[in-house]
């Protein structure tokens, strides 16, 4: 038993660590690790991943919320969209063929790779649209000099629409869909990138939690796998967040993209060879 436990913990710690320093979250790496390395069925990997993503989101959110990076009201508005998508996605995960899940996973890896390559600077707006103003979504973020910069928010419905897709993918594939969430908030709603990342991370807890509750209630979570994976991914993510300020993430960007493309190729190949 000890050997299996050490292998699972090592996989989970590694996935959590890479997920934290790449900013993509542990789920993106733990699902393929469990499927490809530990030879687990896709649905078992998705269930275990959803549970562990809840833990990593909670762990990382503590500092982001305390330090004011998370826009709590934006999170609460958009969670309505992600929770809807996540419940539908987790339900569909029980009936959708594995081949479809693997192909979707490959597609999401390609989207994450694209997002990693095309990350851009902030485009802060000084005037929000009426809906965002009614919902009081504007916020303040410290600049490099420590001065508070006011930002406004726009296009809430369009951002929400993409959040439904993010929730759907989360429930179906066991990932936090962080890359999709950050794209919605950064590109469409014009939140500063760091606020988008912190808010996405905060929302992932509810998105993955909704999916995890469906899986748990359906009896589709393998306790023997999910328990060590949750502990390992959380430990790896905490270690990654401690190391993050001391490493040059920019220089690792190519490595992350290569890993994502390899996972996309492997999952795509598994799907196509299974048809």
């Amino acid at each position, binding site marked *: *038993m*000890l050997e*299996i*436990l050490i292998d699972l913990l090592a996989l989970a710690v590694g996935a959590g660590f890479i997920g934290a320093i790449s900013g993509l979250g542990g789920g993106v790496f733990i699902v393929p690790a469990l499927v490809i390395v*530990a*030879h*687990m*069925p896709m*649905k*078992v990997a998705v269930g275990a991943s959803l*549970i562990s993503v*809840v*833990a990593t*989101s*909670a*762990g990382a*959110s*503590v*500092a982001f*919320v*305390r330090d*004011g990076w998370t826009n*709590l*009201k934006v999170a*609460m*508005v958009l*969670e*309505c969209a992600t*929770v*809807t998508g*996540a*419940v539908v996605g*987790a*339900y569909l995960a*029980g009936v959708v063929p594995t081949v479809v899940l693997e192909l979707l996973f490959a597609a999401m890896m390609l989207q994450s790779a694209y997002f990693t390559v095309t990350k851009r600077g902030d485009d802060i707006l000084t005037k929000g649209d009426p809906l965002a103003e*009614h919902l009081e979504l504007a916020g303040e973020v410290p600049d490099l000099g420590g001065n508070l910069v006011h930002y406004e928010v726009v296009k809430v419905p369009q951002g929400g629409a993409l959040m439904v897709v993010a929730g759907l993918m989360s429930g179906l594939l066991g990932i936090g869909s962080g890359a999709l969430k950050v794209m919605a908030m950064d590109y469409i709603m014009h939140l500063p990138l760091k606020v988008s990342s912190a808010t996405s991370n905060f929302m992932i*807890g*509810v998105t993955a*939690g*909704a*999916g*995890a*509750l*469906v*899986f*748990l*209630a*359906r*009896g*589709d*979570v*393998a*306790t*023997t*796998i999910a*328990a*060590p994976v*949750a*502990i390992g991914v*959380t430990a790896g993510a905490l270690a990654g967040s401690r190391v993050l300020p001391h490493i040059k993430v920019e220089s690792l960007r190519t490595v992350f993209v290569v890993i994502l493309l390899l996972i996309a190729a492997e999952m795509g190949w598994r799907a196509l060879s299974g048809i």
Partner: protein
Amino acid sequence: MPKQEEDRILRVWTPILLRSILIAAMVVLGAGLVMTYTFAPDYYVERYQAVQQGHLIGKEKFDLLFDRVRQGNPHAVLTIGLFVLTLVPLARVAFCFILFIRERDYTYVALTAYVLAGLIVGVLVGSVG
């Protein structure tokens, strides 16, 4: 209650809530793994191999689960640990819901009520699915 006070309460108490439940879940899961290693290592290996073949235990009734925890069943302790972990988002949204009711901010009462309902629907969908 002024908006700034509401924001301060959220920023102080949300991290405390998240951290407390996360630590509680990790303690239960860690204890469950130690109990499994001590009392049921063969059962663990058997379950691991069965899961690789796609054989899951399936739905477990809550009352039976607590009975098995009282009997010191390691698998039941691990399952409870996973349920505690899923309380993190539920508790956080419920906390915001109560705060917005106190503040009479009915737009956000409605939004957090929708998210809470979504999480509860998730349990129901899973139970019948």
